[in-house]
């Protein structure tokens, strides 16, 4: 297999095809600290793309509760178990990727979920890591007992396992934006991609009997608009854009800033070796940093600290970028923090957002004399 460079694991690795990066790579940053699992993204995607018979079980976008939630069942635990122990030496991944760990005669280490595995998208929803106690765990950070929401779409990986495993090259990565698509004319339903994708974001259509996956709303993206899941995100957790490689990072590009400059956004399960292009700001309240390191790599603790610093008001630039998330339905190519205001420009250079870095807050008195009532602040 050819050797390719994966900057997320800071080394070269084996991949079925030579390195061929797109002209630009569509990507996004999801702030897990803001996600409330309202599933608006899930439904927006569902009604847009998977309303056909044969697609009932498909959630190209899903939101699962960690640590217990998963869709399909235990997708992450199963591939990590198959892979065995994974270790890092500082920035460099010292274990095997799923390409390097492929059994003889296979291209990728993988497994094929059963239909029942897809049947519990809400498994583990809102379940804490451990049994709740009377201890007021939520009054301090991090929490001893915790859960958090993990919204997931296809990662449109730089080294997609689905693409690498397809014997027919029916899956392709668009050179213009890096979006990974299944050619619906060419796919013959072998399901090698479903076995191979460790994130299990390629799915089998029961009626057309071929594979389908998230298309990153390419018709919208081509016109400079956000995807459906991002455009409808009421928590405004999603920052969409075109991500550079670390050596070409542009500090005024929101996703580059979050991933490469501030390094507050991390890939999901980077040790698998796919160089996924959806990044996550880790939750700051999770009491067990080992879990976050497993999920987001060795730099999870630093990312948490940087985010907390911004929340304390000590990093206005970071706060500003985060405020720009879904501030417009246009893809924001460039941002600038001017005083206490952040401005965003779209791909065409048009100003599409101008908002305060810190949202104004009002402390409401407990008693409202105009209507003679007491008010309770419940959250």
């Amino acid at each position: 297999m050819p050797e390719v460079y994966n900057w997320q694991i800071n080394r070269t690795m084996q991949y079925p095809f030579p390195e061929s990066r797109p002209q630009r790579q569509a990507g996004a940053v999801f702030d897990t600290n803001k996600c409330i699992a309202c599933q608006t993204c899930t439904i927006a995607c569902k009604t847009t793309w998977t309303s056909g018979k044969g697609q009932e079980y498909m959630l190209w976008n899903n939101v699962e509760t960690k640590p217990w939630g998963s869709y399909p069942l235990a997708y992450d635990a199963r591939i990590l178990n198959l892979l065995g122990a994974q270790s890092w030496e500082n920035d460099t991944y010292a274990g095997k990727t799923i390409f390097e760990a492929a059994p003889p005669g296979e291209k990728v280490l993988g497994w094929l979920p059963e239909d029942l595995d897809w049947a519990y998208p809400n498994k583990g929803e809102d379940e804490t890591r451990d049994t709740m106690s009377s201890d007021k765990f939520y009054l301090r950070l991090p929490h001893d007992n915790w859960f958090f929401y993990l919204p997931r779409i296809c990662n449109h990986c730089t080294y997609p396992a689905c693409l690498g495993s397809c014997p027919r090259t029916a899956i392709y990565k668009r050179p213009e934006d890096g979006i990974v698509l299944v050619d619906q004319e060419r796919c013959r339903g072998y399901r090698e991609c479903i076995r191979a994708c460790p994130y299990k974001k390629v799915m089998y259509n029961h009626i057309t009997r071929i594979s389908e996956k998230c298309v990153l709303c390419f018709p919208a993206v081509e016109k400079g608009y956000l995807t459906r899941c991002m455009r409808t995100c009421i928590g405004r957790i999603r920052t969409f854009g075109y991500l550079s490689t670390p050596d070409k990072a542009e500090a005024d590009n929101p996703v580059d800033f979050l991933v490469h400059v501030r390094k507050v956004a991390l890939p999901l399960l980077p040790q698998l070796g796919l160089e996924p292009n959806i990044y996550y700001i880790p939750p700051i309240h999770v009491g067990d940093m080992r879990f976050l390191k497993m999920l987001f790599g060795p730099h999870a603790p630093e990312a948490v600290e940087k985010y907390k610093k911004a929340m304390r008001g000590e990093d206005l630039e970071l706060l500003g970028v985060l405020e720009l998330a879904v501030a417009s339905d246009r893809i924001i190519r460039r941002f600038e923090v001017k005083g206490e205001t952040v401005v965003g420009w779209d791909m065409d250079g048009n100003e599409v957002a101008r908002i305060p870095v810190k949202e104004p807050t009002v402390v409401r008195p407990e008693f409202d004399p105009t209507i003679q009532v007491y008010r309770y602040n419940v959250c």
Partner: protein
Amino acid sequence: MLTETGQEAAYGRRWRVEVSEMTGDEVKEKGTEGEKEELEVSAESLGQKDSPEESATAAETRDPERRKLLVGLGVGAVAAAGAAVGGYALLRPRWAKEVYCRYVAEELPVGDPDSPLWSTAPAARIQMGPQTMALPTKPEPAVGGITVRSLHDGKKIAFRLEWKTKGFSDSTVGTTDFRDACAVLLSSKVDDQNQRVMGSPSAPVTILHWKADWQKDIEEGFQDEETAFPNASFDFYPPLVRRKDASRPVKVPDEYVEAGASRYLAGYAVGNPLSLIDRKTPVEKLRSTSPGTLTTFDSQDAEGRGVARNGGWRVVLAKPLRPTDADEIELSPGRTYGVAFAIWVGSLHDVGARKTVSQLLLPLHVDPVA
């Protein structure tokens, strides 16, 4: 029935062919020709080696009682040795080196794998083995061998493939449902073994691919989602929100087409041959120039049918001798071509390159028209 010698005499061919002595009905009762062939090999081996008489001579003695005992022991030991050798011979089938396509004046039984006409065609026992040439591989073959017969009538050529299977699968509805299938690869390059691995850019191969699920779709109606998930329920489909009777299952593709929403059946909407709902034939005709280049021909005039028999499949695949598409092989009576075979056992999750394949590209001798 013709004997080997008679077959050679009748057709004046340089190649040897193996012909079953059984009629079609006898084959059904006694099993496949492959089994019969193996029994013949066993008897032959027992007769040639370690006969009981030779062993008795070696154990000769003057003491009648002792002689009886020793003779008995000797006979027993040699018989056991003979049985062992015979057993080995039983497991050592005689594999065909070529496939002979017999001409018949009658119309080919392309839809009837049980037709007595098939027993007039010489049976070739084809050795099958692992697929190790392309990733992913199938290192453990699902079957050791298949039995192939071939007929042509001057217009069409047909093959009948038989193999044993441990489980039948004729669905691809569920994510882990994989079909039973078989294929015949036809090449114009009889001497080029590389052709066996899905052809080459300079010499495309023609492939006939029978699929158990396609046949079931045709004979019993399209296997809709309800067949795999009879208890599943779904609130509603947004593109079909105006349908009047929400209690009955959605009929595909009709309701989506009527609603102007067939794009929600993407594979169907773009005309993927795997996503067709109203099928005409269980045998797909394809071209290939290397692994990963399998492409459905524009015209689908291949035919065939499979039946479950004797714990396995008995499948007919047929196509016209003359090509109807560019790059399709043209078969002429009286000439020799290359042929190879593949088997997929769905219950083992065989699919694509995960297949059991014949280990050689064999000569296919197409009989001249009488």
